């Protein structure tokens, strides 16, 4: 094999109160996919942000295709050929999706004018070439893009001319299985083209499937660098977590006859004639492709979006829910999929973000003691193993997965009658996932009704008592746990007849 296209030697980086990376070294060769795994907060994103010039390293050396780029600026890193598909897409809200892809390096006419037409044309070509046809309206404003769509923009940004090494930071987190498959095809294509590829994911089966080598991080320290054929998922988990983990999760049915949520003939801008029930102690999984309308359904139930018809009953009585405030008053909780835009107050502290939904519950005549907040939510922060230097830390400075856990902690602490979870374990590591499943299970045992929107088959199959599949704003008949199979779900999602 030729010489390494990316060569990292003994990189270290610290933040106030956190040693994010110490003495990490790795090589990537052309046409190789190197998986990069570790628990939430292990330092994966930090490592990649250093490579792309976002953060500056405290110690160590980085060489890209022979030239040293240890202290490159974002621009220099780009031009050198390193591209990062960020875990948190950075989108410019008031310009088109196409323009979002070209910020910083626009195509120009001879006159020097920005060539908008060319921009749209190239974008369309790239969408075709990389198999994203029809997923993205290239004229849509950045702010209207879904997490999935935002990710596609990030990917296209990275794949523009001159790319030598491209790193994907949890690319599949906001994609459905179908989308993920497309992405893998893309990655294989890039590997053929001789690019170096770094692939960060918490979905180990994906890692096994796509990568040639795997580098494992634990608390910022490198604990392994193995050829994929010489290892197993279990080995990797051990290196990541340092202990054995029960694989998967299975829960026993606890639902009682009491109906908590009853939706009848609900229709909206996105939906037509939707009816279903969720009973106390029951977990109903919602499957579907991006654009199927699951998130919208959640937002309609939660009063964020308008419903144009139908009734919603909570515990038997009809509720008119016009705003999230109404929904919460009706004892509904909603953990959104898009944590950055809709979930978190990034500039505020972990403790504030985690207790927001219980402020009124904790207050005595409007007075709210910090001690009360800590008392209420810190158990969940501990159980979820949220990695933060202090409860005062700004949420924006936590790792992606830990941010996700903060959103969950907020609603687990609130324990409403009906809890709607949209992609609850997105970007969360294996260890924490198991813990989250346990907590959700506990809540259902306490009699909560849980509506779980997820694009992760294993999660849906292992957690749901029934699974409802959504397609084009309509829902399928619920599939009972016993006859729920991946194939059945995919067929319903795609609208293809089961064989």
């Amino acid at each position, binding site marked *: 094999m030729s010489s390494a296209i990316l060569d990292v030697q003994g990189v270290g980086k610290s933040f106030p109160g956190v040693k994010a990376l110490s003495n990490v070294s790795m090589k990537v060769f052309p046409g190789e996919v190197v998986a990069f795994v570790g628990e939430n907060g292990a330092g994966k994103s930090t490592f990649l942000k250093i490579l792309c010039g976002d953060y500056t390293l405290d110690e160590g050396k980085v060489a890209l295709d022979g030239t040293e780029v240890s202290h490159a600026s974002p621009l220099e890193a780009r031009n050198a050929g390193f591209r990062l598909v960020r875990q948190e897409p950075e989108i410019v809200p008031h310009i088109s999706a196409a323009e979002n892809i070209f910020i910083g390096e626009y195509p120009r006419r001879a006159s020097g004018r920005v060539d908008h037409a060319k921009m749209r044309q190239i974008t369309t070509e790239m969408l075709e070439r990389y198999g994203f046809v029809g997923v993205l309206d290239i004229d849509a404003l950045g702010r209207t893009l879904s997490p999935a769509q935002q990710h596609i923009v990030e990917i296209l940004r990275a794949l523009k001319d001159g790319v030598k090494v491209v790193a994907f930071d949890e690319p599949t987190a906001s994609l459905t299985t179908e989308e993920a498959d497309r992405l893998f095809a893309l990655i294989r294509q890039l590997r053929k083209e001789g690019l170096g590829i770094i692939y960060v994911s918490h979905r180990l089966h994906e890692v096994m499937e796509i990568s040639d080598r795997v580098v494992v991080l634990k608390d910022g320290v490198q604990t392994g660098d193995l050829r994929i054929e010489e290892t197993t998922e279990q080995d990797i988990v051990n290196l990541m977590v340092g202990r054995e983990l029960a694989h998967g999760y299975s829960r026993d049915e606890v639902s009682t006859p009491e109906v908590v949520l009853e939706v009848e003939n609900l229709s909206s801008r996105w939906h037509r004639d939707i009816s279903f029930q969720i009973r106390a102690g029951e977990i109903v999984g919602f499957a579907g492709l991006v654009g199927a309308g699951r998130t919208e359904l959640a937002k309609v139930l939660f009063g964020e979006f308008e419903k144009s018809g139908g009734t919603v009953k909570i515990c038997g009585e009809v509720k008119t829910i016009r705003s999230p405030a109404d929904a919460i008053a009706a004892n509904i909780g909603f953990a959104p999929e898009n944590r950055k835009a809709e979930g978190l107050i990034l500039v505020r502290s972990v403790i504030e973000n985690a207790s927001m939904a219980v402020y009124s519950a904790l*207050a005595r005549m409007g007075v709210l003691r910090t001690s009360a907040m800590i008392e209420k939510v810190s158990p969940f922060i501990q159980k979820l193993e949220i990695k933060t230097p*202090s409860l005062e830390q700004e949420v924006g400075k936590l790792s992606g997965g830990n941010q996700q856990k903060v959103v969950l902690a907020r609603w687990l602490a609130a324990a409403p009658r009906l809890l709607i979870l949209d992609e609850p374990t997105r970007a969360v590591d294996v260890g924490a996932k198991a813990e989250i499943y346990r907590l959700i299970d506990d809540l259902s045992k306490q009699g909560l009704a849980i509506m779980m929107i997820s694009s992760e088959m294993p999660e849906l199959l292992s957690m749901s008592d029934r699974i409802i599949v959504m397609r084009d704003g309509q829902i399928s008949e619920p599939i009972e746990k016993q006859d729920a199979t991946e194939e059945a779900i995919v067929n319903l999602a795609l609208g293809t007849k089961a064989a």
Partner: protein
Amino acid sequence: MPTEDKKLSITENATLQIASPKSSALKRFTNFVGAENLSLIIALIIMVALIATQTEFFFSARNLMNIGQNMAVVGLIAVGMTLVIVSAGLDISVGSIAGCASVVCALTVTQMGTVTGGVFAGMGIGIILGLINATIISILRVNPVVATLATFSAFRGVAFLIAPDGRPVGVLDPNLAWLGSGRLFQTESFPGLPVAFLLLVLVAVVAHFVMTSTVFGRSIYSMGGNPVAARLAGINLTRMRYAIYAVSGALSGLAGVLVTARTSSGQPASGTQGLELEAITAVFLGGALMAGGKGTIVGSMLAVLLLATLSNGMNLLGIPTFYQLVAKGLLLVLAVAIGQWRLARSEKQQAKLAAAGK
């Protein structure tokens, strides 16, 4: 989206580190004023030292009382403005509201002879005008800057229309005057504490409590930091805005009452013009973010004190206007720059500590 760049966001991180509850006396103090605001205190100390070496009158009890008295009007408005700016809004109409309140208060006192009545009338009109602002912003969905720039003009006009022939309304009621220039706890040795100043302190303490330890206050930080997330957490943004702008209006109204009390006349414009910029300066100097979600009463009050001390000092030293203007500019830049520099430094240290394994 993030409205600062990396540098800023990281430096801010240092605050939290320092503020994280490992409490020694100093730590607790730092914790209370907030690391960023330490720089205001440093700037204040430097400035006081400079002034005091130039004139022995600065530390005279009378002069200190003076500063207290002179900061009351801007201070009250800055308290309300802090709530508004933390909620990611802006209220440019405060000065005009104060103008209306000043006239209304004067008219009430002269025509009904009741000082309490005058005070409440002043605050009442303030609240009403604040609610008008909130309506324009929430119901008509006009961006806060345009909305309050509009009412900044409209309310000013109203103030003149209320005042007979748009002329200042004289009021000689001694009780009202007491509010503006009276003192409490006066002894022959001690000049006493100005009523206006005590009023400001009272308001500021309450506001600090509200912002730090009530659902209302916390919700202001949430909605300022990310309105969408706040709404999805069950916060009613519209109701919040009504409350916030009403408070800002009420305090502007009270400030207007003080102007009437101090100048023994209801002033439609003079005395309340340019208050908006003064207050906004104080709030941002006190550490608030343009994007909202950050800012403290303590910071804003320190900033008001800094500005009041500066102008008092320069008057004591008889510095010519033109130089006063320049000096004020320099002070503002200096105060913030010190803060940024300190935060950048302490953030480096924090990182080093972490690297060394804490």
